[in-house]
């Protein structure tokens, strides 16, 4: 019956994107619209002694200037944190700071003008009297007792401490260990850089008292909930949030941002539509950032190289405030993955969430799981080295066997399905692993630095069973909604609470429904991103859309089929159990009957004309379902990277890349490949180039594309991907997440390759990113 699922259909959204017809917030206009620009703190930490806006207000075209206090007096609320681990201290956070700025880019005043040029001119005329304060920097250093306190209510700049696992088991493992390996490592700060900068537009209807907000969000309903319940105070039935085409998110567009409050607040205050679009500089200093963990990891092994224990202590820099989901990332999305693909009895993970005078840190593609895979696969690599074992052989020795699923780890999660040995079988095959090691021998004999890096990674995707999320600190549930609306003519509108910002849901969700309803792909339109059109939904992140959003649609479609079956049976005077959807003709027919049966259209029309329905059937043909998964899904992967290093200059070149992934059942192979390859590129970016660098004074030193190095296509070899499929039993589609695996795996794969290349010099660890200078310094220090 799968005519559509499993095939590479071209993306139906692409014609409009390729023709420049995407509807992005910054393209939208409303009559009489005013433009908002935001004065931002140039200091990482400063008291605001006064703001003089008189010169700005005199400028022709300036409509108004507002301070933080104006917004507070005007009723805005603080930005809440939506994930609270036990004893978590949540710092005050106002959309525009009234008295103190805590990172470069903190909003200090708001300018409203007739056009964006005047708004920017006015910014330069606002005089803010700052009294700079000492800053506190560094995920771990900020907790030292002499460190500058950032929020008076949060001692030691430590917002929370969290731990998970089996502490006694871990201790026993280290006492009994034959071998112990240890690493100190840093997972550096990243800056997401979606192609489309954040933007927000709002229109207030004074007579209806209704607000419409257009925002670049991955999840418009939760944003409406937060605006309504916490920050703006307009009731949900009077507030519509639209998130139209969005040009990339990578996590950074999940969160509730100050500008989403400022812009609608201004629109109501001046009774005029208003819009703000981030400049790229603003993106660098206000989009939530990623990673920034400082870690000590120790691993215990027995005499045969079996891993028996793992102890991890991490300091996670959360920036100056706790962003919407910040405490989730280092805790329930990271420690829970410390078992990796392996059977490790004694795991104990400890995490401190700390505050610094930097841009807040929250989920960024992979969110917690790249941090977990990085530390685990680095220490596993070191374990293999210590045991003198080939890295794949060492991993195979410790893998969870295929017949032990579902597998309960000591860190809360129960893995759904997998065939980890099978992953490595395929990886060895497609990469020619044996030959690679031979090639390495001859390169080394020539004195070349040439490394082969291996990784085996797991992730938890498709969040989440709502009850589990609740028990781990979430303020919300993580189900998804899906509505299938069959129109009288038989055409279908599907409404999903998932949000696409590059993932291609308009195509893949239509593929799913085309199979479920046995109708052509082009008869289905997928609608998302508008709280005025779509039932409450939780949005897209954590590689959840197919597993949770797709499943909700499957459920709705199943109900539609059931209803159509009953109507058709009634009209064809037979029993529902004898009625079937015929793949070949697309008709709804009676088992054994020779006639054509009824077309999909005829049954749909019958549901609406309602001239002749069974007595227990209501008119209409529309079903809504909410799907709350029974578990996460656990995509897994085995990857290999090959790098060469220029001994004289330290430059690293990625020579080859192979990835085998198990993302469960695949809906559209082309789209999955795109997700994986893009994810790999992003992961390689972290390993080789990307680093959000702050000076000791808290200044952001990588505030533009001229200094923050993004991955570029011409630095990549062909990325060879392949798959194995073990369907997930936790959702009707059998799918797992595909959006983050590439990123989760690639960073550490490249790191292992670079360390492997340098191993002949006696190197066993180098911090990322592997810039030419860092590698050159390492070579100098080891020769």
């Amino acid at each position, binding site marked *: 019956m799968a005519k559509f699922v499993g095939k590479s259909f071209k993306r139906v959204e692409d014609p409009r994107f390729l023709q420049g017809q995407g509807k992005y917030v910054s393209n939208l206009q409303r009559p009489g619209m005013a433009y908002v620009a935001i004065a931002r703190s140039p200091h990482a930490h400063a008291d605001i002694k006064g703001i003089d806006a008189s010169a700005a207000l005199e400028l022709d075209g300036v409509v108004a200037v507002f301070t933080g206090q104006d917004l507070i007096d005007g009723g805005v609320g603080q930005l809440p944190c939506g994930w609270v681990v036990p004893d978590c201290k949540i710092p005050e956070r106002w959309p525009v700071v009234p008295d103190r700025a805590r990172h470069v880019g903190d909003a200090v005043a708001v300018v409203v003008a007739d056009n964006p*040029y005047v708004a*920017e*001119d006015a910014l330069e005329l606002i005089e803010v009297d700052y009294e700079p304060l000492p800053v506190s920097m560094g995920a771990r250093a900020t907790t030292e007792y002499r460190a500058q306190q950032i929020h008076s209510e949060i001692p030691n700049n430590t917002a929370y401490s969290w731990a998970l696992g089996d502490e006694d088991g871990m201790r026993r493992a280290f006492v009994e260990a034959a071998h112990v390996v240890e690493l100190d490592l840093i997972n550096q700060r990243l800056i997401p850089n979606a192609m489309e900068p954040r933007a927000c537009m709002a229109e207030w209807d004074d007579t209806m008292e209704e607000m419409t907000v257009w925002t670049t969000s991955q999840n418009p309903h939760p944003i409406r909930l937060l605006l309504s319940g916490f920050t703006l105070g307009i009731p949900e039935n009077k507030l519509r949030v639209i998130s139209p085409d969005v040009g990339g998110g990578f996590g950074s567009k999940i969160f509730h941002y100050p500008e989403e409050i400022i812009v609608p607040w201004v629109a109501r205050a001046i009774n005029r539509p208003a819009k703000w679009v981030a400049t790229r500089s603003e993106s660098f200093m206000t989009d939530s950032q990623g990673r920034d963990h400082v870690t000590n990891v120790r691993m215990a092994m027995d005499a045969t190289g079996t891993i028996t224990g793992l102890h991890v202590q991490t300091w996670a820099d959360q920036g100056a405030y706790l962003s919407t989901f910040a405490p989730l990332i280092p805790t329930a999305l990271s420690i829970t993955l410390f078992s990796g693909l392996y059977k490790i009895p004694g795991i104990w993970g400890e995490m401190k969430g700390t505050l610094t005078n930097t841009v807040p840190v929250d989920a960024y593609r992979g969110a917690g799981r790249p941090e977990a895979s990085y530390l685990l696969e680095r220490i596993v690599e070191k374990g293999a080295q210590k045991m003198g074992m080939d890295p794949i052989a060492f991993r195979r020795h410790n893998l969870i066997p295929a017949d032990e699923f579902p597998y309960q780890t000591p860190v809360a999660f129960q893995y759904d399905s997998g065939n980890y040995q099978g992953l490595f079988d395929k990886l060895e095959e497609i990469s020619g692993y044996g030959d690679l090691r031979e090639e390495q021998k001859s390169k080394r004999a020539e004195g070349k630095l040439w490394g082969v890096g291996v990784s085996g990674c797991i992730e938890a995707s498709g969040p989440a069973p709502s009850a589990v999320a609740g028990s781990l600190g979430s303020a919300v549930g993580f189900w998804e909604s899906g509505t299938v609306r069959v129109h009288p003519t038989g055409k279908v509108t599907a409404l999903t609470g998932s949000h696409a910002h590059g993932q291609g849901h308009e195509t893949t969700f239509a593929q799913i429904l085309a199979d479920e309803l046995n109708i052509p792909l082009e008869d289905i339109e997928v609608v998302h991103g508008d709280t005025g059109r779509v039932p409450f939904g939780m949005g897209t992140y954590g590689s959840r859309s197919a597993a949770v959003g797709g499943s909700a649609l499957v459920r709705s479609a199943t109900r539609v089929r059931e209803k159509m079956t009953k109507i058709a049976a009634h009209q064809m005077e037979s029993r529902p159990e004898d009625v079937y959807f015929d793949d070949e003709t697309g008709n709804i027919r009676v088992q054994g009957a020779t006639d054509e049966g009824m077309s999909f259209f005829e049954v749909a029309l019958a549901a609406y004309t309602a001239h002749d329905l069974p007595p227990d059937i209501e008119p209409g043909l529309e079903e809504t379902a909410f799907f709350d998964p029974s578990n996460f899904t656990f995509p897994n992967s085995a990857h290999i990277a090959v790098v060469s290093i220029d001994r004289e200059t330290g430059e690293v070149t990625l020579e080859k890349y192979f990835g085998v992934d198990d993302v469960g059942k695949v809906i559209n192979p082309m789209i999955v490949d795109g997700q994986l390859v893009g994810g790999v590129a992003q992961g390689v970016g972290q390993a080789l180039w990307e680093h959000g660098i702050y000076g000791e004074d808290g200044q952001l030193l990588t505030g533009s*594309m001229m*200094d923050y*190095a993004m991955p570029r296509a011409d630095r990549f070899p062909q990325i060879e991907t392949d798959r194995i499929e073990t369907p997930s039993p936790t959702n009707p589609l059998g799918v797992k997440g595909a959006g983050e695996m590439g990123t989760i795996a690639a960073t550490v794969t490249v790191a292992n390759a670079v360390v492997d290349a340098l191993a002949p010099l006696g190197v066993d660890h180098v911090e990322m990113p592997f810039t*030419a*200078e860092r590698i050159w310094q390492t070579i100098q220090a080891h020769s």
Partner: protein
Amino acid sequence: MYPPNFNYVRAGSVAEALSLIASEDDAKFLAGGHSLVPAMKLRLDAPGTLIDIGRIDDLRGISYGSGDENDCIGPLTTHSTIASSNLAAALVEAAGGIGDPQVRNRGTIGGNIAHADPASDLPTVLTALGATIRVENPSSARNIEAASFFTGLFETSLEENELITVIAVPREGAGTGSAYAKLFNPASRYAVVGACASVTVNNGVVSRARVAVGGLTPMATRCGSVEAALEGRSTDAINGASAQVASDVGDDILEDIHASAEYRLGVIPVYVERALQAACARAAG
């Protein structure tokens, strides 16, 4: 990112451009706009008037000399035009390695050298090749040797009312070869360090060598000691000469988040060496 207000005028000819620069207050020429416009958007620069020279066809294109004559490059010639030209090999190579295709399609050689970014590639190359830059003001014209055109960090000997009109580069005859080698800044692709060598080889012996480096010094720097160490040497015995670069670059070595001074000094001999080897190979034909 919106620049502050400015006036815009388009010059139809060199004469008009020169009279506009004399009459307009606080004016600047606009060529490809790839250094000036970003600076304006960041509000680091705020000229009162932009004089767009971009449509003055006389300033665009390459005229190749014959015999001993120089090749003459109009200042509006884009990096991508140069990258696919028959000019000196090092210049072609350097232009092809600038930024990315968009930058190469808009950015011009005139704008590049007038801007004099220490990380730019072309100042290093023009210095090594011994180029001459012709500049004109409303009443006169003068020729400036590349080596004295660049005077410091973002500084040149160009006066405010002067327009670059020609960049003259010696032709590479038989027995002469040049090459450019650089370490790319992974973000911008400017040179963290760059080295250019131009050599003439007779019977396997280096009879003339000109070497310049950039990226690590406030301006492109000619390397007299390296050159002296090379001249008269056989091309298969040139290694070692590049080590002399340390005594040519002085002690004002640039340092930023991309590279320490130590690293720049540490690897510049490698790039000099690579440029020299490639230049010698090209000279040998």
